């Protein structure tokens, strides 16, 4: 585990009160995206706040002492391999499961306080089957009615979200007759009814074909700034693309959390992938790269042909480092396969789990 990883782990499991304050996985949001809060409504400091949450199933501990703080307006990812505890964490946020220990609040309320949250939270469960005998329209209208939307507005609300998921032609279809992709989008539509302030999405693109998955991603991106979105997913590229921040879970514990920039170290390292066969030993360009003042350390991975340059984010930025390094490499006629800021979320997760 790298030093950076250890730091991030410490963030999720702070030792001192001061460290705790700094350490919670916070993602800053633009003030413009914060929903106006009515006078009578309880003012929430965070969209989601979990403190020391433990969930046990018999002797098995699925989630172990998770502390998480997601700011209002953020798009936040829950990442981890199978069995890491992300769906359990998600299910506790949605109120499906009750924590064995610890506290959990959504917009300042326990997830089981349905009356306070019904119109403020939308949830896409991963594997919940739509009621097969219900028609899509009446299912969405039923959900809208239960969500505090008056009868005369429920149809508009339902039709609007159905159109948003590109399913306006499915209104009269039975849920049981929908394909997997269509059902997923209807389930997504019910999560979006009534402009909820917090949207929880569990594997929103799992099992979808690439085109539909792309459309769903665009849809989620479209909600950015209008709601706090929490996504649990295996799809790391997707999360890297959509999320502002994330928590990486492994065996029930948060092993790293922070903004996406922090997790991918995109503001601290640059990677250049060289073409196979490029000679590196004793190469003059390598020495030139090492001598760059802005670069603190250079590593080369023979196997992956990966040239990594580490720098201090306070002193320079990734773009400047890339420009200088590429200048040297191109002058030396080195063939380049790719350039990236940071090590990528996938690599980060591989390192940590």
């Amino acid at each position, binding site marked *: 585990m790298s030093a950076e990883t250890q730091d991030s782990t410490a963030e999720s499991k702070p030792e001192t009160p001061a460290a705790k304050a700094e350490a919670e996985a916070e993602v800053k949001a633009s003030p413009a995206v914060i929903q106006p809060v009515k006078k009578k409504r309880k003012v929430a400091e965070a969209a989601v706040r979990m403190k020391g949450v433990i969930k046990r199933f018999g002797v098995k501990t699925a989630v172990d002492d998770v502390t998480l703080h997601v700011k209002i307006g953020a798009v936040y990812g829950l990442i981890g391999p199978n069995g890491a505890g992300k769906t359990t964490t998600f299910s506790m946020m949605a109120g499906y499961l009750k924590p064995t220990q610890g506290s959990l609040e959504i917009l300042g309320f326990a997830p089981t306080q349905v009356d306070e949250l019904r119109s403020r939270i939308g949830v896409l469960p991963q594997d*919940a089957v739509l009621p097969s005998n219900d028609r899509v329209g009446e299912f969405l209208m039923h959900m809208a009615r239960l969500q*505090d939307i008056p009868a005369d507005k429920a149809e508009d609300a339902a039709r609007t979200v159905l159109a948003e998921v590109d399913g306006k032609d499915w209104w009269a279809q039975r849920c049981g007759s929908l394909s997997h992709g269509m059902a997923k989008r209807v389930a997504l539509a019910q999560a979006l009814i009534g402009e909820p302030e917090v949207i929880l999405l569990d594997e929103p693109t799992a099992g979808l074909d690439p085109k539909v998955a792309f459309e769903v991603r665009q849809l989620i991106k479209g909600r950015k700034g209008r709601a706090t979105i929490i996504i649990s997913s295996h799809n790391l590229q997707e999360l890297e693309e959509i999320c502002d921040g994330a928590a990486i879970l492994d065996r029930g514990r948060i092993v790293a959390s922070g903004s996406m920039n922090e997790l991918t170290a995109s503001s601290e390292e640059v990677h250049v992938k060289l073409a196979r066969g490029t000679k590196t030993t004793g190469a003059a360009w390598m020495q030139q790269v090492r001598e760059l003042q802005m670069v603190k350390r250079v590593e080369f991975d023979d196997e992956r042909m990966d040239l990594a340059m580490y720098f201090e984010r306070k002193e320079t930025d990734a773009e400047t480092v890339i420009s200088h390094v590429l200048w040297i490499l191109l002058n030396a006629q080195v063939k380049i396969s790719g350039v990236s800021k940071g090590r990528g979320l996938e690599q980060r997760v591989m390192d940590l789990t």
Partner: protein
Amino acid sequence: MSALAPTAWARKGKPRVSPLVEIRLIAARELRKSIRSVKGIVLGALTLIGSVVSILICVWIEGGQREKMGAGSTQAYIDLKRAAIEKSTGDANLAAHLATVPTSLLLFLKITIWFGPLLIALLGFDALSGDLQHRSVRFWTVRSRRWSYFVGKFFGLWVLVSLITLALNVIAGSVALGKGYVTGGSLLTFGVQFWLVSLPISATWAAIALFISGLFRTPILGLLTTFGAFFVLWLFGLGGFISRVGDMIESGDAKAMSWYEYIYPNAYDEMLLSSDPRSIVTALGILVGFSVLVIAAGSAVFARKDV
């Protein structure tokens, strides 16, 4: 930006969805679901066929009895019945009351009450366990109180059974009327009374079925357990009945129900049909109390359940 940006209807003060509204919405949907499902259609069709066969048997029995007693008309049959009952009980008022009860419809009521638990078990075993198995329940638990969901499901099941029972009574009454065994007036009086008698009894069975359904994620386990529980309750009723018949043969006196017979919901039909208002109120109180208790326990268990 959506046309449904946060607006007054969604954001003002306290949410307006009261538990009663939740229960109504969930019960209405449950009813709609049951009527549309293959299971609902098949069970409905079988029940209607069964009811036609049952009422034909009932009128055949009444016809045989009339012939045996030599009653030429309905009035003559009532008079003969009254005399026979008064002779055996010595109670003229009770005899007058019981003699007017249409025999075929009373028999039909007994049959519907006896088969009622079977219908309720088959209709209700997956009311909750099916939703738990497929996790469909997750769409509801973020939008409705758990107890409202449970109670809504109960009412959905109970109203469905009540509507089926009403349809059966209409069929039975029509057959009896067509046969000339009952007049329009007495059909209206007794038909409605018999249907009303079946309501608190079916409510109790429905509450038990739903309670059991909420305990399982696998519907077949729910079904087997419901059958098991109903069978045990039936044994209580049967045991009490056999004991009373034995006592009557031995001593010649009809004894009161044993304590354990009160556990069997069907045992209250005679109390509910009684001419004594105290008996009716007592039976109603026990059945409603029992139903409320089971629903409260079921809701509490469901509210604490991980879904």
